């Protein structure tokens, strides 16, 4: 019982972080029909930026905000410089390009920051809450992780639902030509979409790093989990990404807790294959027909 609770709580936290990463992938997929495999090393770079700031003796929160802001800038630059030329080209070009960026960014980080493991600080305690004489396996940082992802999701929801910019971004994602006819500067919206996605990705990078070790490839497996979560929910559906992330987090946590952490990637692969074969449009996609 105790272990099940521990496992579920760990899964919930992890699930929220995967949800954030999956959401980043979905935002980009919706606007440019590209799966950004480079999302993982982009989040890694911004986490290193936070780490450098914190290691210089500057408060955690400044590093936190700086990481998110640098994610914004990095996302915009990557879209403008590298992605713009392959938009509308065969999809294999974009896939290979984002993989190339994946490798380049990882290598650059290893050269600049070194490939050794560095511990990343947390703003809150890493001890579980005590209820009576039982320690619940939910730390302050876990609560912060869950809350920050929820807040970011609410902000994104508000942006898309209630603001003109959000409306323009959604319109650009659904129909570029009609959006242009209506006066929307579609290219700007795509850049903004990548920038926002990179912020969300950076958040997940910071949350995974918190209280743990950071090294250049620490996000590599997260891109796989984020992708599986996004496909699970339907690549087109932000809500699906969140639910897919939570389900995957719980599922993988059970595998990790009861079977073995080495098999977590295999479990993710199995879930992915089952979803793609049984319900390729994902659990929550509205798209009626999708070519998979």
């Amino acid at each position, binding site marked *: 019982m105790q272990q099940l609770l521990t496992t579920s709580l760990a899964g919930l936290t992890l699930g929220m972080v995967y949800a954030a990463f999956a959401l980043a992938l979905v935002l980009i997929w919706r606007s440019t029909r590209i799966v950004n495999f480079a999302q993982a090393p982009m989040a890694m770079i911004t986490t290193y930026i936070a780490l450098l700031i914190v290691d210089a003796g500057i408060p955690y929160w400044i590093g936190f905000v700086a990481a998110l802001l640098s994610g914004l800038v990095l996302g915009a630059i990557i879209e403008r410089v590298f992605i713009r030329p392959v938009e509308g080209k065969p999809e294999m070009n974009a896939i290979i390009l984002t993989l190339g960026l994946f490798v380049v960014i990882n290598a650059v980080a290893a050269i600049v920051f070194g490939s050794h493991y560095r511990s990343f600080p947390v703003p809150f305690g890493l001890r579980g809450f005590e209820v009576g004489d039982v320690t619940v396996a939910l730390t302050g940082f876990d609560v912060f992780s869950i809350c920050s992802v929820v807040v970011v999701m609410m902000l994104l929801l508000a942006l898309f639902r209630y603001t003109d910019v959000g409306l*323009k971004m*959604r*319109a650009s994602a659904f129909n570029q*030509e*009609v959006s242009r*006819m209506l006066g929307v500067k579609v290219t700007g919206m795509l850049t903004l979409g990548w920038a926002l996605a990179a912020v969300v990705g950076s958040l997940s990078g910071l949350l995974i790093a918190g209280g743990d070790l950071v090294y250049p490839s620490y996000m590599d497996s997260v891109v796989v989990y984020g992708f599986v979560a996004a496909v699970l929910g339907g690549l087109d559906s932000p809500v699906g990404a969140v639910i897919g992330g939570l389900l995957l987090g719980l599922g993988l946590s059970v595998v990790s807790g009861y079977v073995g952490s080495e098999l977590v990637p295999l479990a993710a692969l199995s879930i992915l294959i089952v979803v793609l074969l049984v319900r390729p449009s994902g659990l929550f996609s509205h798209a009626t027909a999708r070519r998979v």
Partner: protein
Amino acid sequence: MLEIRDLTTSYGPVKALDGVTFTAARGKITAVLGANGAGKTTLLRTVSGLIRADRGNTYLDGLDLARMPAEKMPGLGLAHVPEGRGVITELTVEENLRLGALGRADRSRPADIDRVYSLFPVLESRRSAVAHILSGGEQQMLVIARALMAEPKVLLLDEPSLGLAPRIVVQIFELIRGLVESEGLTVLLVEQNARSALSIADIGVVLDLGRLVAHDEAAALAADEKLRHAYLGF
């Protein structure tokens, strides 16, 4: 008024528009007619900046629109209703309309969505419905309504009757006629169905393989039996 001068556009080696020159008079409906592939849709897409012209100009009240990007057009008073509806089906009716208002030139006062709803009451009753559940006629009304949200001086309409029941077509045509008469809107109407287009248009131009072959009063074109047989198919 919209002045089109020597407009030439090609797809690779094929000329889709070849030196087209005419003027769409202010407060009139000008019907652009011709067979499939005559260059009607290309004409609208070139005017609205979706396709770059090889040569020639389009003037909107004296301002040259050629080589301006498509996204500037609504702000200059030109709205384009594309062929095949062009509703953003994932957005709601009201979001489509809000989007239409974002491009308008004068954004000092709030967009008048109620005016559009009074023109299209059916849209108001479905304002929060996702657009893909609308019927074909409702979608066509939505795109016209969305174009009107930008408060255009010139409206480019591409095949508004396509795939709609005759009763709905009449309804839409009467509405356009009404807007032209009450607000002095200039309309460039592309239609495959020449007979019904000439019945509401003031002026007609006929394209054949990218060239302008006739330009006259709508009634005169409708009365010209040779022209009708050769180009208009009725």
